[in-house]
Every structure is written in structure tokens, then in C-alpha cells.
């Protein structure tokens, strides 16, 4: 592996390089602390460094400090090399962030096994980083897959109703069928009133609960064959096929009654209120679901405005 040696004494330096080269390592040599730090801060820095404690410029301990305080993606394994064989000095060096130390005059065999130990740690860290990279890649891949699945899904995760995609897919299909059978359908566009206020005052959890309650009311108000969907946020839509005009009124009335029953019965943290726009679709004419939705949307806004005016008149 690539090893940096920072040593100002040429004899020690020569002994080190000769031995390490003989063991197959690639050696980078500096003879002062400043050059050593620079070499260790490069992108292709050696992952193991043997630093003399005392040398011109930064000392080995100072280099340890500097390297440990800077956040490194890959920590460098540092062996302090020193003739200081007093114990407190060694403690200082290890506390500064050195991984190991060797005292001079060093024993060639000890040097070999300590460098081997260091190389083992570096290899382990390398494997670990590689593994983390692989896991991160797997997570990203999985997130993509989930996103893709979600985009293919037809149902709304929170309410179990159809989602935007599910609604339009089924509505188009239903439109074609009802055109053949020359029947009429009811299209409802419903928007929750005051969801933002619920979120702001009672929190997002209460907001979610309210959305789910609305979904339940809608589901119970319509027939199994009707398409009930949450288009997103606080917007819902229903397409009920084979409905004649009097039935339309009844269906909407039932919805209103069920909402009222919900609000009057039980202990709910907030009242539910819907602005509803309804259009009857006559399939004798060319049916474009988008156009009809726009109409229902406009109706819904009219309803919302009226309800607001009513509310302000009352207060």
C-alpha cells in the first residue's frame, strides 16, 4: 500500500524506506511537518502515515490534531514514530488521534507487524466504506422502484380510495361504456373546507384524520359501482354511472346528510365540510372527462363561494 513517511533524520528515513519498500509498499517521503500535512490532505493521499514526532514545521502530534479535526471521508491511519519514550508523551500522541506509535530505535520486526496491523485496519475501513456505498446505491434504487410503483398505483395510499390516476383511467373507461348504453352519469367534484386551518391549528395528524373521515363519508354515501377518488390534497371526485336526474339530487342529499350525521354524532376533533360541484353527463354527446371535470370544478367553486357568503351573513 501507499505509505507516507515524515522524518527529518535521514538515517531513520532511510531505514524506514528501505524496509517498507522491501515489504512491497509504495513510499512517499517528506522531511518536515508542513509538507507531510499537505501530502495527507490531497485526494490521493496515502492511507497510512508514519510521522516523526519532532521535526521542522508541524510536529507529528500537531498533524494528528489537524487531520482529526478536519472531517475526512477516509481517516488516515497514523503511526507516530518517536524517540520520546516517556509515557506521558505517548498518551498525548494517542489522545491527539494517532492510531499507534513506534519508539526509536525501532525494531524491524515490530515495524513490520505494526504496519501490517495498520494496513489491516485501512483495508477494513475501505471495505466498510465500499459496503456503505453499495447499501446507499441499493437504497436509492429501491426508492426509485417504490416511486415507480407509486406512479403506477391506482389507489390513494392514505384513504384507500382511487387516486388521480385511478380515477381518470376508470372514468374514461366508464364513459365509453355508458355512451354505448346511452345512460347518464353524475360527476361530483368535492373540496374540503378549511383543511389548511385544521392543519395549522390541530396539526397535520388531525388534518390526515379529517381527510380519512371525508373519504369514509364519501364511500358510505355512494354505491359500490361508483368511482370514488381522492385526486390529491383536499380534493375528491365521484363518478356515478347510470344515474337519472332525480337520483342525482338524492345522491348529493345523501352525501350532505351523512356529513351532517358525522358532525353531529360522536366526539370528533373537527367538523367536516365539503364544497360540492355536481354535473350530469349526458353520454349522447361526446364525452370528454377533462371538460366535464372543469365544469364540476367551476360548480364546486360556486358552492364554496355561496357557503362562505352564507357564513359571513350569519356572523
Amino acid at each position, binding site marked *: 500500500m501507499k505509505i507516507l513517511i515524515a522524518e*527529518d*533524520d*535521514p*538515517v*531513520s528515513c*532511510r*531505514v524506514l524506506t*528501505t*524496509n517498507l519498500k*522491501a515489504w512491497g509498499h509504495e513510499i512517499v517521503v517528506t522531511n518536515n511537518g508542513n509538507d507531510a500535512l499537505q501530502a495527507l490532505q490531497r485526494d490521493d493521499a496515502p492511507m497510512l502515515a508514519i510521522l*516523526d514526532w*519532532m*521535526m*521542522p514545521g508541524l510536529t507529528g502530534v500537531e498533524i494528528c490534531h489537524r487531520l482529526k479535526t478536519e472531517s475526512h471521508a477516509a481517516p488516515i491511519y497514523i503511526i507516530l514514530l518517536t*524517540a520520546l519514550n516517556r509515557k506521558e508523551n505517548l498518551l498525548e500522541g494517542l489522545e491527539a488521534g494517532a492510531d499507534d506509535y513506534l519508539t*526509536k*530505535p*525501532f525494531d*524491524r520486526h515490530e515495524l513490520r507487524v505494526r504496519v501490517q496491523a495498520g494496513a489491516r485496519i485501512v483495508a477494513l475501513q475501505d471495505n466498510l466504506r465500499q459496503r456503505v456505498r453499495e447499501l446507499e446505491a441499493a437504497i436509492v434504487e429501491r426508492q426509485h422502484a417504490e416511486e415507480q410503483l407509486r406512479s403506477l398505483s391506482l389507489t390513494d395510499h392514505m384513504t384507500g380510495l382511487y387516486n388521480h390516476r385511478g380515477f381518470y383511467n376508470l372514468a374514461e373507461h366508464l364513459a365509453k361504456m355508458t355512451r354505448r348504453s346511452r345512460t347518464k352519469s353524475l360527476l361530483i367534484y368535492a373540496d374540503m373546507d378549511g383543511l389548511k386551518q385544521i392543519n395549522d391549528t390541530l396539526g397535520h395528524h388531525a388534518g390526515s384524520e379529517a381527510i380519512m373521515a371525508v373519504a369514509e363519508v364519501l364511500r358510505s354515501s355512494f354505491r359500490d359501482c361508483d368511482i370514488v377518488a381522492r385526486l390529491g390534497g383536499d380534493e375528491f371526485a365521484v363518478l356515478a354511472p347510470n344515474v337519472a336526474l332525480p337520483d342525482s339530487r338524492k345522491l348529493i342529499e345523501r352525501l350532505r346528510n351523512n356529513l351532517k350525521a358525522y358532525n353531529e354524532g360522536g366526539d370528533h376533533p373537527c367538523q367536516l365540510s365539503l364544497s360540492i360541484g355536481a354535473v350530469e353527463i349526458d353520454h349522447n354527446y361526446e364525452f370528454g372527462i377533462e371538460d366535464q371535470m372543469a365544469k364540476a370544478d367551476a360548480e364546486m367553486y360556486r358552492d364554496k363561494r355561496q357557503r362562505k357568503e352564507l357564513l359571513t351573513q350569519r356572523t
Partner: protein
Amino acid sequence: MSLTNTVDQNESTPFHVTHETVVAVDLAILASYDEAQEEGEPDFVVELIDLYLDEAPRIFNAIHEGLTNNDWLSAKRAAHSLRGSSNNLGILQMGVIADELEHLTTNHQVAGAELLQCLKNEFTRVEEILLAERLRRLS
């Protein structure tokens, strides 16, 4: 490593700071570097001897400059470096004197100068031994 097998009697030492006396050059330590000798390469121990003989006078200068310029840290650092290379090569007496110089706590200039002189005296002896070893190896 044996530090005490030969006790050297150097009575002419003039300085008042006393340090233990050990063998000037432990040739066994020096010879241990033969283990790192590569096939077909020049004699490794001779290379180390040359490096040392080359480096020591430079260090004496650095210590001298440090002492005269009142730059104790530089003198201390140079002594430290000399201690390292001396001990590495088994040049033990030099190592002991350098160690003492490095760890002077007071009286840097006077005691330092005396110890530097000791180092120089010792070096004459060491040089002789190392050159003889060098010659033996090359012949």
C-alpha cells in the same frame, strides 16, 4: 540490544554534567540492518554509515547555531534528531549525550556548549570505528 556490555572509560571528559557511559558503537545493532539487505543492492549498512557521517556534522552546526542565537528549540530539535539516528544505528554513547542535551532544563547555553563539545569528541571516536567497519564491509 545490550547497552552495558562494554563500559567505556572516558576520563578526559571535561564537563560537569555527568551522564552514564555506554559502548560507543554497538556493532551488533548496526549489523542487524543486514536483515534489510536486498540482493544485488549496495551494502545497506555502509549506506547508513555514510548517511550518519554526513548528517552528524550538519547537526553539530545546527546545535551550535541554535545555542549562539539563543534559539533553544532549534538546538533541542537537532539534538533530538541526532539521538534518534544514533540510537537507531547502535551509536549509543552519542545517543546518551544527545539525549542529555535535548533534555536540558536550565543553563542551556553553557551546559549545551559543553555537551556539544562532548558530542564532537565522541564523534571523532565514532567516526574512526564506523570508517573501519565501512572498510571491512567494502573489502
